[in-house]
């Protein structure tokens, strides 16, 4: 999982490669090495599992998560004393199946995570491209804006926005996008600036290429690996932020299951029924871990490999 050791005998006179049938493009190369990375594989599997849970929740979950079985409140998991096979991991204080809530909770987590990542990516990248490429006053304004936005701790800002917006998945996505686009913007901007300073951008200008063409054809492909990595990591962050918001009660309406909400509710019965918190905690941890592994693995394979090969 660590980077390969580069051979220091700098063969700038690299061997004249007799071409194979088709020499693979850098993109194909990156893809192939990505598949071979264990982080990518494990992370990918976890993400896949969680996605399946979310998509096929009605089929997978044993019970309806909203169904309040008031006779069977605070039931322990089925292997413990007093447990019931109908509720594999027990029930919460209102008699709802914990396991089913967890499965359905994946829906909210992924909707929010994915939706927010797309929004933050689009907004952040667009502004980063403009700021990094044009520089000057455009860069100053956008950077000021980013600095301004980042002066408030993200949690504080997103909570405030949710108070203003009101509950609902769409609002949560909007709140996260409005907070996290700055992180995208800042990181992508530095990369854009590095690429924009490379001579091939000046070369394109000398050919009379217009700005739009240069940004889309020359610069964007150069920062694409970084964007993909950030996107993947952002999904994990979105899951965490949603959990925080629903813990405080400012995320989704009362009838929608969400992991943070489960934790908050189970906290009141911490002494009697600690298992109520374990499942959502594990769910959050595993999901975020999956996206982090995937993102980390992609970062190592997509970016530094490409850079190293150009040496």
């Amino acid at each position, binding site marked *: 999982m660590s980077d390969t*050791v580069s*051979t*220091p*005998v*700098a*063969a*700038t*006179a*690299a*061997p*004249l*490669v007799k*071409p194979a049938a*088709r*020499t693979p*493009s*850098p*993109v194909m190369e990156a893809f192939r090495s990505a598949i071979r990375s264990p982080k990518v594989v494990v992370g990918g599997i976890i993400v896949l599992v969680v996605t399946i849970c979310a998509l096929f929740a009605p089929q997978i979950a044993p019970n309806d998560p909203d169904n309040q079985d008031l006779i069977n409140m605070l039931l322990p998991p089925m292997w413990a004393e007093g447990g019931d096979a109908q509720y594999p991991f027990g029930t919460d204080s209102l008699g709802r199946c914990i396991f089913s809530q967890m499965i359905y909770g994946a829906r909210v987590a992924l909707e929010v995570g994915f939706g927010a990542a797309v929004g933050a990516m689009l907004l952040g990248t667009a502004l980063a491209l403009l700021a990094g490429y044009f520089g000057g006053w455009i860069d100053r304004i956008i950077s000021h804006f980013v600095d301004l936005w980042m002066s408030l701790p993200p949690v504080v800002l997103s909570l405030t926005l949710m108070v203003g917006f009101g509950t609902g998945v769409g609002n949560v996505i909007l709140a996260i996008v409005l907070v996290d686009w700055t992180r995208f913007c800042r990181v992508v901007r530095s990369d854009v600036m590095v690429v924009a300073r*490379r*001579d*091939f951008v*000046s*070369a*394109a*200008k*000398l*050919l*009379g*290429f*217009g700005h739009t*063409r240069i940004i889309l054809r*020359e610069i964007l*492909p*150069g920062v694409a690996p970084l964007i993909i990595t950030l996107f993947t990591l952002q999904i994990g962050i979105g899951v965490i932020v949603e959990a925080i918001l629903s813990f405080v009660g400012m995320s989704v309406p009362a009838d929608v299951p969400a992991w943070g909400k489960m934790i908050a509710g189970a906290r009141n019965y911490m002494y009697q029924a600690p298992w109520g918190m374990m499942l959502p905690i594990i769910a959050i941890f595993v999901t975020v871990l999956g996206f982090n592994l995937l993102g980390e693995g992609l970062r190592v394979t997509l970016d530094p490999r*490409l850079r190293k*090969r*150009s040496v």
Partner: protein
Amino acid sequence: MSVLTFDNVTVTAKIGQRRIDVLRDLSFTLGQNEIIGLVGESGAGKSMIGRTVSGLLPDNFSVTSGDVLFNGQSLLALSRTERRALLGRKIAFIPQEPLSALNPVRTIGAQFDEHLRHLGIDRARRHALMIERLEQVQLRNAAEALQRYPHELSGGQCQRVLIAMAFAGAPMLVVADEPTTALDVMTQARIVRLIAEQQAAHQTALLFITHDLRLAGHVCGNVGVMYAGDMVEYGPAGAVLKEPSHPYTRSLLAAMPQLTGPRRVLPALADNMPGIGSFATLPGCRFAPRCVVKDPVCAGTRLPQRPVGEGHWVRCSEQCAAGAALAEGALLPPPAIDMAAKEPAVAFDNVRLSYHAARGFLGLKTSQFDAVKDATFKIREGEIVGIVGESGSGKTSIGRLIVGLEQPSAGTIRIEGEDYVQDGRIIHLTRRDTQLIFQDPQSALNPRRSVLRLLTQALETGDSYQPESARRPFAENLLKDIGLPPDCLDRFPSQLSGGQRQRVNIGRALGAKPRLVVADEIVSGLDVSVQAHILNCLLDLNRQHGLTIIFISHDLAVVRYLCSRILMMHSGEIVEEGATETVFANPRHPYTKALLDAVPPENSDQPWPPVLQ
């Protein structure tokens, strides 16, 4: 008694599953107060030798046969700690790239002090000793320099500090690893003189590693020529330079442009020095594929050392030596200048280029820096003009002004008689008549574009737009001009060698069919034969297509080979101008004179380095 002996040393690298010999059967002896030069192009393995001495080989490299003796004692038998105890004390190094060789966040004084402490000198004496040593290396204001950080000194000053540190422990052996490669020509002359003085004063054995054969010829007693991990020739400097016996040494010397004598076409060898990946396919002489004499025996057999003179041997077969003389190149014809053209291709009139930087409290004040001051000159179509200067002279800025990447702060620029700005747009950019070949192909070629797409980039928009189907034939034609094989088209820059990348770089600029190209330091850092190829390529383009070339460089010999007229620049000003031969034969400006004196002459008998101010 010898200080350093390499006795049939072979260094092997374990890459993946393969074992590759990166240094083979290396043998030489360095005695006290002797200087030996190790000369080779990049990738020849010379820095590996330095690392073998220091024991700092990378993890997957190891010495698999032979021995390295220091003062009669085997270095390889020592433990890591024992080896380390020698470093800095008995064995010292002078590194390359002096500006990055010191920790940027600690002062010079702190680092020198640390070194002296490592040498065991007690606190009371350290400060005085530092001042004394720095004065010995002619570092002015030594006490003040100790308070400074590396980035506040010039490359030459940093190197002086490093030399002082190297000799501080009165070492028996000093390994100088390309100590002047990153420095300007004049600084190089001063530093080489300094190293020679220090060596003489301390009677140290000096191993001088460089890529410049002429430089080694002036400084060293004996010279060893490296090629792809083998030492192919070794002998007294004068003998190796005047009577080179190995075909590689001969072609190396022949391909170096000369400052004096008639201008002849430089013979350029085909292909490149093989990289590590190809070593497995070359069990015998690794130069065989490129050798003038095609003896089938050489490629398969490990050739022994064969004496050719007093202390002079060569690793080559008997047959080769006989037929290895290279034919003299034809005399170069003068460039095709279009005298009939009414307007000069480029005319500068009192052009100034200034940069402003914010300084002071809250960035309210600004300071001005003039990159180019009051430049006035004309360039005619079909000329090859050289702009010569050291870094910071403004030559790159002039190049960028010519193509339109910068706009002058004052003065006018005319392209073919017309003002460079028309209707609010810079005409270069719409007409594409002037193109720039950037120095660094790493930066100038988009790594995500294939060679085909790089060469045909100009066809993607604008007046010269052509649909995809027409682009491949266009690219194939272009490949002929730059001398690359057609199977390159689908490769990507990362899959090409340095020389090939530079040629694609040239091709990319030519793709726009310009009438004028500015070539900004495009051959610096390239191997000698690759450099010769590219220079010849430019000459062909000029002859066949009437291409006007503006060649920016710091290398006087290269400029003399290529350019009929030159502009000498110093600190943003053009200090001298005229026909190349005239300027070189009778330099008028003191800067030009000093620069000419600082270049190591071809004849190793001539005294060098000169004493420069």
